[in-house]
């Protein structure tokens, strides 16, 4: 079992601890809505809170795309070309399947054409 043997013995508790931790993270955001923000704070600064939260989808999705690309198993430049084409297709068609298809086809084509 090696150096990790001791850790593995208590694995059930570690798994439950990790599960509780991640579940807590998931729940905190959902719970915060009416627990942590009393009305005065929510109205403060001309609704700054509301205006900030409106941008969560854009900010979060951009972060996910960037991290998804930088954390790739192999981050080659041709992925960026594929993603740029896919972005254009998504912008034009607004269809998810078209975006995925365009990105993958360009990526495979480039991999096949370039040595």
């Amino acid at each position: 079992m090696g150096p990790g043997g001791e850790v593995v013995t208590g694995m059930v508790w570690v798994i439950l601890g990790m599960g509780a931790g991640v579940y807590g993270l998931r729940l905190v955001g959902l719970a915060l809505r009416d627990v942590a923000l009393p009305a005065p704070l929510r109205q403060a600064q001309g609704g700054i809170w509301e205006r900030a939260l409106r941008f969560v989808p854009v900010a979060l999705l951009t972060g996910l795309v960037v991290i998804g690309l930088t954390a790739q198993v192999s981050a080659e430049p041709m992925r960026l070309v594929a993603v740029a084409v896919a972005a254009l297709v998504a912008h034009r068609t607004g269809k998810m399947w078209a975006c995925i298809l365009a990105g993958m086809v360009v990526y495979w084509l480039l991999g096949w054409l370039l040595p």
Partner: protein
Amino acid sequence: MAHLTRVDSTRSDSLAGFWRGYLALLPLWSGAIPAGVAFGVAARSAGLSVGETQAMSLVVFSAAGQIGAVSLIAGGTSPLLLIGTVMALNAQLVLLGLAIGRQLRLSWLERLATAWLLTDGAYGVSLGVGPLRLAVLLGAGASMYTAWNLGTALGAGVGAVLPGPGAFGIDLVAPLCFLAVLMPLVRSRPAVLVAVAAGLTALLLARMVPGGVAVLGAGLVGCAAGAWLTRNEVAGPHPSPLPLGEGVSPPPLRAGDGAGG
């Protein structure tokens, strides 16, 4: 009687929404199953039993977190550090929950259930289906849960029967999926600038902190930029720069089409 009919139609409506979400996430199975297999194989080789490996996928349900944890277990890390790392890899879930809590009015029971199945992929895909709905979100979450646990079972039980998550560039599918949902949302000037700010932040943080923290940082910086850019907006019925205000929906992406073939 009328009341009963309404309950019934709401229920069948929810069921339809659940299946829409479930099917809309199918493109992400292409990445989730190989990643699950990779996790299963890595967990077994780190010394975990088949039961422990599967239990982790059933209980923790986080690809980045579990794969990160397993690489630490192999190196013999203390349990507290393990739990802390898994949480750091999933820090963006807080912001995700916050966004969903704002768009949906959920009872506590619904929040407890949603928290069980909440992932980036399920949220992204649900936004693509149309106005965010709980049933769609839960369906997409359940779909990801199925794929992740199926992949784990294959990897833990049978070994590496599938090509790894990097093969054929399959790991590109998830970012493309998020991109498809993102593009229709960045049609206003503030939204474009928010995306730029968030993207640069993520790029900068990617090399310094775990993935979840980087995504959370991108989210926070992007939201702050958005609040600042719209500071002159008059309170009241806002001239939404984003098609995502209460009751307003992004243009539907018809993700189901992709799932259907």
